[in-house]
């Protein structure tokens, strides 16, 4: 895997961080009603009382607007990666996204873009939100983007680590843990969170989110050490214990609850999707990564899709894992998967696969695993 460097893209990031007033607009449309007639099963939205497969409700107008704006940002990134885009297009797309997304400026994510803006504008990150629109414009005019344009959207190795699933059906909790640790689990800890950060050793000995033993041992009889994955498997977060797995719907809910940010993560249902959906989801994934949010994905690896390295070709695996990057080379796209299965002794957790078909296909693209299962939980 080649190293990925984020370059340029500073102006649009400034907009996204809330340095313009457009984001104060609010959506007025109502969200669609929940699918109350669906019975949630172990791993998915389940069946209706008449036995028909459930489909999650379509996103409401507000969420749909965010999705479309994210697609514009992602497509602008793709265009710049392929040398056909411009910084102005990216800025425009980011401005549109900022209008529909109602995040407070300066959210405490490890936002690489914020750091680059801070450096470029010569303003501390904490002071970015205090800049007026005119000051932003003035400083951006003086800023000199690095040559080369946007390279790729990839969470840099050394900052993101997939956590190996501790036991049993913990691919969901392990996926959530991987994401929350990257986002700074301690920083996001709320009154409803149990965890301070302690040192432990998942993949390659990097720290984990480890809770206090005495509390967790009492709360979780299956837990002898109070692992964070046990905590995340609690009904408060992912409800993995009760359901025997992490259902679609609980990942978004759990991540947003933990971070106490109700709109950090949203869902994109991909089950049964074709080329059109694939091509709209991809820029949304790139946008999520660009903003510093690894995505969770609920996939099915099987002979009818594909099986990553180390998985048995004969078996079907329903699974949660992490998307931590993506890049485009011409019309071929590559996706980075942080794998929570396996063990470091034999399996490297950072994997890269095709997102789209390539001229001489040896395996199906990764999309096949998403279109045959549930979807992506992303920013």
């Amino acid at each position: 895997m080649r190293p990925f460097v984020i370059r340029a893209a500073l102006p649009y990031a400034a907009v996204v961080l809330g340095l313009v007033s457009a984001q104060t607009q609010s959506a007025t449309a109502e969200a669609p009603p929940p699918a109350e007639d669906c019975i949630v099963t172990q791993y998915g939205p389940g069946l209706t009382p008449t036995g028909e497969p459930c489909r999650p409700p379509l996103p409401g107008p507000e969420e749909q607007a965010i999705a479309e704006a994210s697609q514009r940002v992602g497509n602008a990134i793709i265009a710049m990666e392929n040398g056909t885009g411009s910084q102005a297009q990216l800025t425009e797309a980011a401005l549109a996204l900022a209008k529909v997304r109602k995040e407070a400026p300066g959210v405490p994510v490890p936002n690489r873009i914020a750091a680059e803006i801070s450096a470029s504008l010569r303003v501390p990150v904490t002071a970015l939100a205090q800049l007026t629109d005119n000051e932003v414009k003035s400083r951006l005019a003086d800023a000199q983007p690095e040559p080369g344009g946007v390279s790729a959207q990839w969470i840099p190795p050394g900052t993101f680590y997939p956590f190996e699933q501790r036991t049993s059906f913990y691919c969901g909790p392990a996926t959530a843990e991987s994401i929350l640790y990257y986002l700074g689990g301690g920083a996001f800890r709320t009154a409803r969170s149990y965890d301070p950060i302690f040192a432990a050793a998942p993949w390659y000995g990097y720290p984990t989110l480890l809770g206090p033993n005495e509390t967790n041992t009492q709360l979780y009889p299956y837990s002898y050490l109070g692992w964070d994955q046990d905590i995340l498997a609690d009904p408060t977060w992912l409800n993995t214990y009760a359901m025997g797995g992490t259902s679609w719907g609980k990942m978004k809910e759990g991540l947003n609850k933990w971070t106490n940010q109700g709109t950090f993560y949203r869902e994109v249902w991909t089950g049964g999707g074709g080329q059109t959906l694939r091509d709209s989801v991809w820029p949304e994934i790139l946008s999520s990564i660009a903003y510093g949010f690894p995505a969770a994905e609920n996939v099915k690896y099987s002979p009818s899709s594909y099986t990553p390295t180390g998985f048995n070709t004969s078996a079907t695996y329903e699974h949660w894992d992490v998307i931590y990057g993506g890049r485009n080379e011409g019309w071929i796209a590559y996706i980075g998967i942080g794998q929570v299965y396996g063990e470091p002794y034999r399996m490297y957790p950072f994997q890269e696969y095709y997102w789209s078909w390539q001229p001489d296909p040896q395996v199906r693209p990764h999309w096949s695993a998403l279109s045959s299962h549930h979807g992506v939980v992303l920013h």
Partner: protein
Amino acid sequence: MYFTRATLGGAIAAGAVTVAAALGACSAGDHHQETERESVLPNSAATATPSSAAGEAGLEPLPGGQHPEFPALVLPGEVTARVGDPFAKTDGTPRLLNFLDADTGQYPMRAVERGIIVQRHRRYQSDDGYFEYVLWDPSSGAERLLWTAPPRKQDMISAGEGDLVVVVRTGMSMPFPEWAMSLRNIATGEERMIAMGDPDLLRTRGLRITLPLGFAPMPSMSGGKVAWAEFGLGASGPEKHVRIYDVEMGSTSTIATLSDAREELLWSPSIGGDRVAWFTAKGMGETVYLVVHELGTGKELRFSVPGAPFDGKLSGDGRYFAWDDGFTAKYALELASGEVTRFANDEGDQTEVSGHYVSWHPKRGAGFYDFESRTVRFSERGGGGAASVLGKWFYWREFVIVNGEEDKTRTAYYFIELEP
């Protein structure tokens, strides 16, 4: 549960052994009938019996200069096998479509005397999908439904002999803690449960739950015996065992045990001829040993294996052992001489054996290696992410790309006969 008391008489008459009619009277408790034999792990704190030296094992020792008990294998740095002619499909090559229709996938799982068992995944894009198992004749295209798995259960068939196949039934998610293994006679439909997983293992911390199948075993079968590895709860903690099920006797024995499966590792057991082989290590990062166990005598030969062996299998006659080294190289060991042949690189991972052929799960290219002739052959057009030796056949998959997208109506598995 699908346990049956019916007999499986004559089930492997076409295989290496003849099975008496009285295979019945088996019960779900069969897997508790253990005949403990000597432990096999070097320096194990478990039920350890010291390893036998190579010379005592009834196997030829390796050439001099190597440790007498744990001879280190020497791995070639490049492919040393003879590379034969590449192969490709022709107009008459039998094929099996990957998709029967828009929501039904197919996959060739296992060869039996009467054809190929094909797994058919109905409604594969839905949560309520299910699996059918169909017997398909590559020569004629004829097929018949064998059985249907319950909803949200899948049957994996990694072993068989004659009309018998070994079926491991699991759920849909790793680490597959609730598995059940049965023998199924595809001629008569009779079925016998031979082992099942212990869900209480989920309470155990610190077990290394690894790909490719987690708790679920990947059995192999030879000479009327089935070999596999499984976790179990012992008095002092989680254990891991190498089990042998004798089809004719209807009993299970244990030939190796790890007393603390949280520390020591044991993986990838397989049976070939009268030998069973597996990998073991005292812990993560420790030296990996290949253990070759003679079922007749209980004696063993061990080799230290450099690299990161992931998956390995004995040849059908037990004379060779092939393995995948960390997804980057494929080796074959001739046990009598200790000579190692490298037959592939990073074309794929894992190993599949049929008789004296071995293949891998392709990622960059498909092919197969013949232990006897020491020849590897590669597909001209890759492997489409799925390829394997299956009985007398080798198959691989090819995609059809139209305007940059897969034409799923034309993606197919192609079958060539290895030994017409």
